[in-house]
C-alpha cells in the first residue's frame, strides 16, 4: 500500500469518527423540559452548571445532538445554546430508538469442569 493510499485511508477513518458519534437533528424539537432544574454539560460531557427549566426555550428545533455522550444542544431564552442530557428534555419528532430485549441473561453457568483460564499466562513458555 502506497503512502498516498495509506494517508487517504487514515483521513477517511479520522473523518468517520465524529460522524459515527454524531446524530442527525432532523426536525427534532424540544417539546418539554422534565424536572425543575436542568444540568448543562460541555460538548465532551463534563458538567458545567445547573439552570432553571424555564431557561430552556421550548418548541424550538434542536441545535445539535450527540450519541456519545448522549447529549442534545438546545437553545435557551437568552439565545445561548447549551448541551443538556437527552433524558432531561422531551423531544418531539425523534426517531424511536430500536430497542431489543437482552438475549443473554446476566448469570452464567458455574464452571466446575474446566479450569478457568483468562488472558495470557506470563510464566509459561
Amino acid at each position: 500500500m502506497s503512502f498516498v493510499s495509506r494517508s487517504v485511508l487514515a483521513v477517511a477513518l479520522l473523518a468517520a469518527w465524529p460522524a459515527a458519534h454524531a446524530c442527525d437533528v432532523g426536525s427534532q424539537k424540544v417539546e418539554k423540559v422534565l424536572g425543575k432544574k436542568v444540568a448543562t454539560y460541555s460538548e465532551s460531557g463534563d458538567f458545567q452548571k445547573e439552570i432553571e427549566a424555564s431557561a430552556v426555550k421550548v418548541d424550538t428545533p434542536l441545535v445539535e445532538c450527540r450519541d456519545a455522550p448522549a447529549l442534545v444542544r438546545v437553545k435557551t431564552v437568552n439565545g445561548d445554546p447549551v448541551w443538556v442530557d437527552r433524558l432531561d428534555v422531551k423531544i418531539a419528532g425523534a426517531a424511536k430508538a430500536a430497542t431489543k430485549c437482552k438475549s443473554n441473561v446476566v448469570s452464567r453457568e458455574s464452571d466446575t469442569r474446566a479450569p478457568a483460564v483468562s488472558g495470557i499466562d506470563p510464566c509459561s513458555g
Partner: protein
Amino acid sequence: MFRRLRAFLRELSSRFHGHARVSLWLPAAVVLTFAVIEKLDAFGMHEAMEARSEQATLRIVSPYYTPSRDVAVVLVDDDYLKSRGAGWPLRFAEQGRLLRQIASAGPSVILMDFVYPHRHGGGDDIQSLLAPILSSSDETIAHVPIVFTAMAKPLAALPDGFEFCAEELKEHGAPTDILDRESLPTALSEQVQANGRGRFRVGYIRWSRCGGEYPLLLGGDANAPTPVFAAYRAFCESPSHAARCERSDPWDARDFAHPMIVRPGAFPTPEQRFAYSESVCQRPLPARGDVPAGERFLSALQQLTLGVFGDLRRSPSVQLALPCPAVTVLPLSRLQNASRDTWNELLRDKAVILGADISGIPDLVESPVHGQIPGAVWHGMALDNLVALDSNYLAQRHPAIRKYGGFALLLAFAYAFAFILHFLELKAIRLGRAWISFTLWVILALAYVGFGDVRAALFCFAIGVGLDLTSPSTSAVYLVGIAIAAACSALLLRWGVPPGNWLGVVLVAAAFGHALKPYYHASAIRQFPARLSVLRAIFFAIAGRRGPHAEHAFESSHRGE
C-alpha cells in the same frame, strides 16, 4: 457411692439391652467415632458436605422466597460501552452524569459498586463524578443518599485476631481503622461523615474468610458496614420505607451482627420484563398478588426431585435452570433509550445499585441457584434479603447450640435409633416397607415422566427394581428420611435458621442403621465390644480377668493353624 453407681449402670445397661437388644455403650461408641471423624474433617469433607447441603436446600426452597421488588441493579454492560464508543473504566464525568440521571428518578438510595483506587489519565478528575450531584439544587437529587464503596485493609494489615466475619457485635474497645485509604479518593472521603450518616456514606468491601456468607458489619464493628448494610440503613431512613424497618433499627446493630447467608429466589420481579423476555428468564412474579401456593410447591418439588440427577442450572428449560435472580436487573444498554417516565417507573423509591458487568473484568460470584452472577447483582440480592426479611435474614446465629447441639442431637438419635430399628425390623413392618419402597420409586419415576425427564425416570425405575431384588425394605426409610430432613431444613429457613448439614444427617443415619443392624439381628453372636477387639483384650488383661467370651485375635489365629 461408687458401688451404687456401678450397680445402677449395670441395671441400666441390662434394661437397655433387654429393650433395644444392643449394649448401652454401643451408641455412645458410634457417636464418639462420628464426633472424632467430624472434628478431624478429613479432606474438608464435612465442610464441603455442609456447603452442599446448604446449596441444595437454598435451591429447593428458592420458590418460597418472595423478593421485595424494592431493589434494582443498573449494570453498565458491554453493549452500552459499545454503543457509546466508550472504554472501561468510564470517565468520571460519564459516571457523574449517570449518577445524576439515576438520582433524578428519586430512588431511596444509590449504591455505587465502583472502587476508585487509581487515578484516571487524561485530566479525568474525581470532582467530575461529584459535580453533577453536589452542584445541584434540585430537591429530588439532593435528598438521595449515595453509598460509595471502599476497600478494607487486607487481613494481614489488621490487628491479630481480627475477623471480618465476626459473629458478635464489638461493643467495647477502640474501633479498628479498617479503611484502605488509597481506595477512597480524598474528594469522596471529605464528603463522608464520621458517624456514617448523611448524604454520602461508605461501605467496605474486600473481606475474606467468610465463605459464601455476606457480612453486614466487618469485624462486628457498627461503624464498619459493608456496602449493602450502609445502603440498607439509608433505605430505612427514607420516608417511604421507614415504617418497614420499625421492627429492628439497623443503627442498633445487635440484630445485624451475624453474616448473612443470601437466599436466592426462583421468581424474578415483573419489572424484569423490561430488559429480558420470558424465553430468556424464568416466569416472574405476577404484577399483582402472590404466586399460588401450588405453583411454589410444585416448583420446589421439581428442584428437589430433578436436582438429584444433575445440575439443574444446565437444564435447557429456564423454569428448571432459574437463570434470572429475584432482583430487577437493568442493563444500561437497554435503559439508555428509555424515557424519563420509564426511568422513574423502574427506579423511584427503590434501592438502586449501580455496577458493571463487563467482559474481561472478573467480578463474578457463585450463587447456589443462578450460577455465576456479577458482584453488583450479589449485592442486590443481599440487599433484597434485608429489605424482604429484615433482621430475620438467614444466618448462623447460635454458635454454641451449633457446636454442642449437634452432638447432643446425635447422641439422642443414637439411643433412640435402637428402638426405631426394633420397630422397623418387625416382620409386618418390614413387609410393608418393601411395598412402600417399591411404590415410592415407581411414584418418583412417574413424577420424572411428568416433569418431562424420561432419562431420570428410567434411572429411578432401574434403581427401584435393583433395590427391590436385593434389599427390598431399605429404601423407604432413606427416601422418607431425606424428605423429612429436607422438609425440616426448609421449615427452619422460615425462621431464619440455616439448613445445616442435612445431607450429612441422612448419611449418618444410614451409617447408624448399618452399624447397629448386625448387632440387632445377631445379638447372640456379635458382642460389644467385639470379641476380637484389642482394647477389650488389654482391658481384661489389666483387670486381671477373662471375659465370658474372651478370645484374642492372636489366640484364634493360632488355633486356626
